[in-house]
């Protein structure tokens, strides 16, 4: 094997960092030049042999299926433990509906009861909390979704409130991340105050703060170009 006499595969591997006087010796020493040529030849062969097995290896179909099954099982387990954000509004609605029914019922009954048993709202809350079904309990585990939805600057947004760490980060945020979040600001007719990517130390996505005449709001989005409908979370800033 010859190759380009001016290019030695060993240059990158063997001689990098070697003293100049050693290199000068190698160039002038027949025995060393011979060794070097041997090593160059070896490296070319190794490269060629490795190239024989390089390239993509399709995953066997049965393994694909096995992985798909395993991930589906993981997803099923997860859904039992964590209610995904985009589904958290459902138990909230169920709880609200249950509360409304109870309010109506209590409203009929309360005038006939002695005073001092609490307001209808308090009783409704108690009744809703006592309502059977895991959905209500699951919603309690959601991070203050109901309260923060009320605070959300966009009445139509179904995104839950930001988790506390992102909310705290958003309070401090100004500038940064270039034009990240501009699509959202344009969509809302707001001014882009600042953005951060990734959203937090242990968070994916981006954190964007915008401002309009109603005040500032913080948005947790999947990407810099995401819009309000994609939001993982949103909270008004004070």
């Amino acid at each position, binding site marked *: 094997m010859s190759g380009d006499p001016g290019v030695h595969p060993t240059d990158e591997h063997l001689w990098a960092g070697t003293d100049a006087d050693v290199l000068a010796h190698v160039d002038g020493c027949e025995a060393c030049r011979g060794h070097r040529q041997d090593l160059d030849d070896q*490296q070319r062969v190794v490269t060629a042999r*490795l190239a024989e097995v390089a*390239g993509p290896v399709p995953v066997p179909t049965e393994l694909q299926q096995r*992985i798909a099954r395993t991930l589906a099982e993981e997803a099923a387990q997860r859904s039992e433990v964590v209610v995904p954000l985009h589904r958290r509004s459902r138990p909230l609605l169920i709880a609200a509906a249950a509360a409304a029914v109870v309010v109506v019922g209590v409203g009929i009954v309360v005038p006939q009861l002695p005073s001092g048993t609490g307001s209808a709202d308090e009783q409704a809350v108690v009744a809703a909390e006592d309502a059977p079904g895991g959905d209500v309990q699951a919603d309690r585990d959601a991070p203050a979704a109901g309260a923060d939805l009320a605070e959300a600057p966009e009445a139509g947004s179904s995104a839950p409130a930001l988790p506390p760490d992102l909310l705290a980060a958003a309070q401090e945020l100004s500038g940064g991340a270039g034009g990240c979040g501009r699509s959202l600001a344009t969509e809302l007719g707001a001014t882009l105050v600042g953005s951060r990517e*990734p959203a937090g130390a*242990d968070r994916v996505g981006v954190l964007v703060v915008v401002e309009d005449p109603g005040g500032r709001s913080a948005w947790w989005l*999947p990407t810099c170009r995401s819009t309000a409908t994609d939001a*993982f979370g949103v909270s008004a800033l004070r």
Partner: protein
Amino acid sequence: MTPPVGEDDRRLLAEHVAGSPDAFPTLVRRYQDRLWAVALRTLRDPDDAADALQDALVKAYRAAPGFRGESAVSTWLHRIVVNSCLDLLRRRVPVPVDPTEVPDARVEDPVARLDVAEALAQLPPEQRAAIVLVELQGFSVDDAAAVLGVPNGTVKSRCFRGRARLAELLVDYAPRGSTHASRTSGNQAGVRDVSSEQTRPGRDR
């Protein structure tokens, strides 16, 4: 407009964290062939590789909320797979290699050569992983360092040592008609001398 793959990967992972059931499987389908190649070439045994890949993907599925975004999602996935493979290799009871069973093509039969996969299997796990990533999967040294969680120089060193060992195992080395003394006295000895020189600590910077 289609977003760049890296950005789309992050979006998928974010959607997975947010509860989308389709996001992570989409991410897996995108990289499964590359991840499988790494697992298979690192472990060699298809059953072990399948176990390692599955184990790694489950870990990634669960660990996604902790992804800090400091590397590409693909790098993060490769890192989990490589770690899973190395864990498996370290747990294995090492099978001693009988040097008399390793065909020395340079001496006995210039045609007989070790299969590349067999030769790779004889490298220490860390060297093997570096060689697989850089030489077979086409990772840059920087990316391989990120996957392996070691400095760039360590990747270079492992690749160099790995290649030196592979040269011993793979090269059906035919002596050229040289006047060099070490060749006339037997090429095998000459090569071994050089190889041992190569692997001497401090040379592979």
